[in-house]
């Protein structure tokens, strides 16, 4: 166990102790016990930074199931470290924020922090595992913890609905991804990502390559809320705001981005990868941004904006993957897309995190998040306003904030797409910058709505539940730190370029680097007068125009149906599956024991008969049979007659006596078959059984014939004949084919030697198989306890009666 493994498992270990802290230190907010952990982890991951900056990676292995190629291998490279820093860094800020957001007296803090830590550990596991199966396990754990956190206020219908929705969609994607991993394993014979990458070129033309690609993209798209799977993210906003800021904007939804980035070296050269990742990404971006404009809930705006921004990053990664086709360009202009993707990933975490926290503050201090009720809060909450305007301007892509830089690079990357001469991009490539530009205009508009509808305009105190006032300092620290990062990264973007962006790019595009090389990243404000600058200017001018005339456009926005077809489809599917399976189960689980027995016997006949026939096991061999004596024939006739007579017995007395007769005959059989112990036991047991039947005889009801219908009898007869026939066949075949020697000779030889007994059956029972007998006695004891209990039991109903 290395320190790296410990770092991943630490949140899971600490989570065990959270309920204890909660119970013992009730006066102290449980969050204070959690806070040191992400800070420590953040510092720890920072200490690894020099290793990844020098282009190396850190690998530690714990053997888990080596025979299946599943090991807990941890690998820290540029990409993994970037995500680890995000997870722990934002994690620390979110925990701090939650301490002030969730009241210690009212909330179930023990639950909350356990789930949160579970998520943190799982997410670290996802981004640091080198083994695909281990990564999958952590991936699903993030889905589960997200489910628990969305359903944190489980008494609300909407929370449960949102939790279920996110769970179903992301786990569906996760399973698809697992399928993709297994396909990769079939092709390469390894679950290790590092080994997989070295074989990437060999599997490119494999028949399973495209199915694996599609499966893995399905996992990424569901997790990162891409079109059309994004529908779970807006509903996930039912979670407490710290959770939304953490899971549903900064980290978990970026797991899909991570997956795409991780697999770019494997799949990136394929045209499907480019078209799907870039196309779906840009479509999601424009779709999300348009829907964000028509929302009225602050968190809903942010949710759709997150969908849109995730689409942006996704499309950049897709475009960047195309750089694989231009290996020999000295200045590979297409890698700028990957640079932009990573840079925007960091930026998005900073500004979106702060905006979520601001939305939480507004909700906390006014009691509503509805922008129709809010307005004019600038006078009450000046600090919150400052934070949110910086965040929103960065999101809109305005200078001098970091969002401006990455948005400019985004435009650059999209414009470069038109210069590519692969995958039919000469004709269709122009769509990408156009879509990107349109989406950016709507991004601008909703960013403005977010700030100005909340903080400026008419103050409507009568619509608010509380009198608004500035948030406490504790709530403001975290968003303030995030927006200061927005400004710092805006002015000094090159702080990130060598430390984080370049190593991460090396993980995404390793084949473009020679030995010892690294990507030279330099981000600058001023690129000269070029098309990107005009695009940004256009966004601002059109955006301001659209925002100013927002009320006129309302009808058009409204004409987009309120209940989306996609959501309807999901609801329809869920209801259909539920009612369908209910009806189906109801139709065969009808509560009648007879039906169940019919299923059991029918299956018995089916499975044994098909096996007998399928394995060609029916044999009939008379060479090895023993002689038939007169007595045996008589006994056989007795048994057969007796058992058939029971079928037609009219009274219970007859059937009990006939059963006894069959039993005694069987014991005579044992005598003839040289089994004296069995004969004795059977005689004793049969006597007791008959006695017991007769004791109950007095109480038992008259034997009535319930079954009257012919079809009923016919089914029964058919099934019983089937069972009898199959058993006869098995008995014949078992006798006729001896696959291996009997083990009985051992007992014959050792009975006296080992156990000093002469009766082999007895010795086997008490010496060789002593435990069997012990458990046999246990069964009898349980049965007798049950009988005793039943006789003593008087149900309440009787007493009352």
């Amino acid at each position, binding site marked *: 166990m290395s320190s790296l493994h410990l770092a991943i498992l630490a949140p899971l270990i600490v989570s065990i102790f959270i309920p204890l802290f909660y119970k013992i230190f009730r006066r102290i907010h449980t969050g204070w016990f959690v806070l040191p952990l992400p800070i420590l982890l953040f510092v720890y991951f920072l200490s690894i930074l020099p290793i990844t900056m020098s282009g190396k990676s850190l690998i530690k292995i714990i053997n888990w199931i080596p025979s299946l190629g599943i090991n807990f291998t941890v690998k820290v490279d540029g990409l993994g470290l970037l995500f680890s820093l995000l997870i722990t860094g934002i994690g620390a800020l979110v925990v701090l924020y939650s301490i002030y957001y969730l009241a210690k007296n009212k909330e179930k803090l023990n639950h909350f922090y356990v789930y949160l830590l579970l998520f943190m550990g799982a997410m670290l596991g996802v981004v640091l595992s080198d083994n695909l199966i281990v990564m999958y396990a952590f991936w699903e754990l993030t889905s589960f913890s997200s489910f628990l956190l969305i359903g944190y206020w489980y008494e609300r219908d909407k929370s449960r609905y949102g939790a279920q929705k996110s769970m179903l969609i992301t786990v569906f994607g996760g399973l698809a991804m697992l399928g993709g991993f297994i396909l990769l394993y079939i092709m390469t014979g390894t679950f290790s990502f590092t080994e997989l990458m070295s074989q990437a070129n060999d599997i490119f033309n494999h028949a399973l390559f495209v199915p694996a690609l599609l499966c893995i993209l399905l996992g990424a798209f569901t997790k990162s809320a891409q079109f059309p799977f994004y529908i779970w993210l807006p509903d996930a906003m039912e979670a407490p705001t710290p959770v939304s800021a953490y899971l549903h904007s900064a980290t978990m939804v970026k797991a899909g981005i991570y997956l795409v980035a991780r697999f770019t070296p494997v799949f990136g050269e394929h045209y499907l990868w480019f078209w799907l990742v870039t196309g779906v990404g840009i479509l999601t971006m424009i779709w999300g941004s348009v829907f964000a404009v028509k929302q009225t809930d602050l968190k809903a705006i942010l949710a759709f904006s997150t969908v849109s921004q995730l689409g942006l990053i996704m499309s950049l990664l897709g475009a960047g993957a195309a750089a694989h086709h231009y290996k020999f360009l000295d200045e590979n202009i297409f890698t700028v897309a990957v640079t932009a993707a990573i840079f925007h990933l960091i930026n998005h975490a900073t500004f979106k995190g702060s905006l979520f926290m601001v939305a939480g503050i507004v909700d906390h201090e006014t009691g509503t998040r509805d922008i129709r009720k809010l307005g004019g809060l600038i006078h009450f909450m000046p600090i919150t306003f400052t934070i949110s305007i910086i965040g929103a301007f960065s999101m809109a892509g305005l200078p001098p904030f970091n969002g401006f830089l990455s948005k400019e690079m985004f435009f650059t990357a999209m414009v470069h797409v038109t210069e590519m001469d692969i995958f039919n991009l000469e004709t269709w490539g122009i769509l990408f910058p156009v879509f990107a530009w349109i989406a950016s205009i709507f991004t601008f508009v909703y960013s403005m709505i977010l700030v100005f509808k909340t903080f400026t305009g008419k103050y409507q105190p009568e619509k608010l539940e509380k009198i608004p006032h500035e948030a406490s300092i504790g709530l403001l620290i975290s968003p303030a730190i995030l927006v200061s990062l927005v400004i710092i990264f805006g002015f000094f973007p090159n702080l990130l370029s060598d430390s984080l962006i370049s190593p991460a790019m090396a993980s995404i595009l390793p084949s473009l680097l020679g030995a010892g090389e690294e990507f030279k990243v330099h981000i600058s404000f001023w690129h000269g007068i070029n098309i990107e600058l005009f695009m940004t200017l256009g966004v601002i001018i059109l955006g301001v125009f659209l925002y100013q005339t927002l009320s006129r456009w309302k009808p058009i926005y409204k004409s987009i149906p309120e209940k989306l077809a996609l959501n309807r489809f999901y609801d329809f599917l869920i209801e259909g599956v539920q009612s369908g399976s209910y009806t189906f189960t109801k139709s065969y689980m009808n509560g*009648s024991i*007879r039906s169940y*027995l*019919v299923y059991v016997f029918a299956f018995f006949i089916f499975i044994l008969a098909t096996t007998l026939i399928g394995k060609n096991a029916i044999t009939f061999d008379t060479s*090895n*049979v*023993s*002689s*038939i*004596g007169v007595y*045996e*024939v008589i006994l056989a006739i007795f*048994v*057969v007659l007796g*058992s058939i007579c*029971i*079928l037609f017995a009219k009274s219970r007395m007859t*059937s*009990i006596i006939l*059963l006894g007769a*069959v039993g005694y005959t*069987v014991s005579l*059989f044992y005598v*003839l*078959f*040289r089994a004296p112990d*069995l004969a004795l*036991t*059977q005689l004793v*047991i049969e006597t007791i*059984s008959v006695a*017991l*039947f007769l004791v*109950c005889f007095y109480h*038992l009801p008259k034997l*009535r014939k319930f*079954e009257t219908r012919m079809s009923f009898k016919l089914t*029964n*007869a058919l*099934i*019983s004949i089937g*069972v*009898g026939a199959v*058993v006869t066949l098995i*008995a014949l075949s078992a*006798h006729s084919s001896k696959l291996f020697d009997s083990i*009985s000779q051992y*007992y*014959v030889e050792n009975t006296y030697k080992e156990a000093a007994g002469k009766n*082999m*059956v007895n010795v*086997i*029972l008490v010496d060789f*198989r002593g435990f069997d007998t012990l458990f*046999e006695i246990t069964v*009898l004891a349980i*049965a007798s306890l049950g*009988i005793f209990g039943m*006789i003593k039991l008087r149900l309440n*109903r009787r007493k009352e009666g």
Partner: protein
Amino acid sequence: MEILMAFVIGILFMTATYLMLSKSLLRIIVGTGLLSHGAHLLILTMGGLKRGAAPILGGNAESYTDPLPQALILTAIVISFGVTAFFLVLAYRAYQELGTDNIEEMRGTEKDD
């Protein structure tokens, strides 16, 4: 002999199944009794019948019948007795409580408490 026994066992299983599929509780119990007889004979037959003396040392026999199936059946006889006894008392009590021995009438529905 084994061939004959195979048919005897088949008939035992057949009647047992028919009885278990009926609606009367008593007939079901009788059916389980027959089923266990059939199963015991099946195990014994599969091991081969009458291949030597009874499995008790000291008689100077040259060979013995297979002791292992006998040991298995001995356990099975006792356990099937336990189960039959349990079942019988269950039927008796169920009849007392519910006033019927028709299992179709005992069918629990979700509306019942």
